[in-house]
């Protein structure tokens, strides 16, 4: 009687076995890694962590509010580094995005790979490392920070923008082409209106990220509020560190708020 009942299983028994084996390997690797890390950790320090943290917290409170007078200028620098850096990156990112997008690049075999290479190169190196290099090359200061932010942002913006260009509706481009428009006009009527919302979104998103990144650039001497942070950390001036962290927190909060408003207004 049972022989006539149709049997359905999600996976065959071989697949089931393979999956079980894959999980086994995964768990084995996890345990091995944990033991490796554990053997190289001074557990005494780790268990002592909460006490030290509480100690630092006690030293850091209350924050030294009067120190704010010395923070206005670096804070303004930080804002400028992020904003000018973002603007600077867009000047390069927009043409690179058009060269990288499959549907707008002049040559898929030659120019597109070069554009993609620039994007990957820019993205693979963190702003902090760009800043380290630039401080060595052009000396410490805001300029190094601005260029570091710009270099890192080119890849990010170009990548997101070229993906947006590749996703446009081809019909609209075809319709504009059929009117006898020039290449430049096909671009400005068929493509630009379609990617404008994405462009605005990417810009404020990156600006928002750059505000956060530029707060730490001072750690390597590239200007901004990070410089004060490093100075305070080195002299163990915990109340000042506390104030700087609060100021950074508020700055990031405001930048997120601004970018949310801009995004809502444009899209």
């Amino acid at each position: 009687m049972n022989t006539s009942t149709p049997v359905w299983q999600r996976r065959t028994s071989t697949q089931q076995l393979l999956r079980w084996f894959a999980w086994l390997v995964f768990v084995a690797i996890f345990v091995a890694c944990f033991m490796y890390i554990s053997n190289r950790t001074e557990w005494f320090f780790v268990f002592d962590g909460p006490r030290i943290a509480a100690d630092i917290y006690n030293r850091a409170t209350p924050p030294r509010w009067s120190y704010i007078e010395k923070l206005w200028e670096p804070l303004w620098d930080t804002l400028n580094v992020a904003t000018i850096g973002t603007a600077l990156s867009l000047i390069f990112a927009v043409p690179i995005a058009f060269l990288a997008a499959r549907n707008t690049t002049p040559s898929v075999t030659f120019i597109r790979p070069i554009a993609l290479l620039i994007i990957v190169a820019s993205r693979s190196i963190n702003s902090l490392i760009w800043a380290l290099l630039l401080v060595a090359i052009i000396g410490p200061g805001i300029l190094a920070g601005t260029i570091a932010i710009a270099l890192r942002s080119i890849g990010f913006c170009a990548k997101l923008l070229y993906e947006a260009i590749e996703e446009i509706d081809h019909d609209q481009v075809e319709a504009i082409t059929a009117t006898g428009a020039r290449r430049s006009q096909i671009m400005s009527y068929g493509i630009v209106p379609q990617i404008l919302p994405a462009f605005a979104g990417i810009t404020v998103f990156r600006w928002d990220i750059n505000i956060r990144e530029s707060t730490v650039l001072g750690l390597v001497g590239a200007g901004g509020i990070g410089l004060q942070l490093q100075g305070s950390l080195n002299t163990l001036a915990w109340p000042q560190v506390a104030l700087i962290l609060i100021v950074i927190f508020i700055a990031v909060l405001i930048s997120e708020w601004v970018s949310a408003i801009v995004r809502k207004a444009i899209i």
Partner: protein
Amino acid sequence: MLTITGLSKRYKTGDEALTDVSLSVPDGQVLGLIGPSGAGKSTLIRCVNRLVEPTNGSIDLNGVELQRMGSSKLRKARRRIGMIFQEYALVERLSVMENVLSGRLGYVGFWASWFRKYPQKDIQEAFRLLDRVGLAHMVNKRADELSGGQRQRVGIARALIQDPELLLVDEPTASLDPKTSRQIMRLICELCEERKLSAIINIHDVALAKLFVQRIVGLQAGQIVFDGEPESLDASVLTQIYGEEDWEATSQNDKANDAHVVDDSDKSEQDGA
């Protein structure tokens, strides 16, 4: 007069979309191009304005050979060929007026078009055309706020402001409801009549085609299998174009429905006017 001779198109994938198609469309004739999906209807009209590059054959529009032109001459030739699309293909984020004026892009320079400084003559013509297609009150609406029928009317105005010698129309009604479909087909045919304009209209709806066009060409697997008056399109021809089906039953039903719906749409259009 459009003359297509020995047109073939083979895509890079190896698909033979058109095989040795020859066709001529006299001035002022509205031609309905029917055939199953994948028969090459879209490819055929796109070969005319070279949105698709033909592999072989020649295309001659009023004594000008289109298939050998360099890009700048082709651009000038495209200005006189209007095109209307199935999904309207309007620039969604631009206004109705900008969409209509984009039909003049071939005649104005880049910066003039970037700053939307079109000649007064073009703007007047755009207003006149929008009035003609019944959208005078929608001038500053964004294209994505319009309904399907309204969008197609903008598409028609955009094609006509080019002052074309030929209209290429790709499935103008496939995304519209039956009533709007008829109104749009009627509008296209009226405008062609007014301007003595010839047109090739790709269309799936055989009944609708029979109602409006003067000549029907049937395409099957990239070859012309029928060319004649709408009246001579009977069951055996439909079988030849589309394959075996009980055509009598459907066409009789269609006829009954047609009579009914035509009355209906005529009435409501008058009501609207």
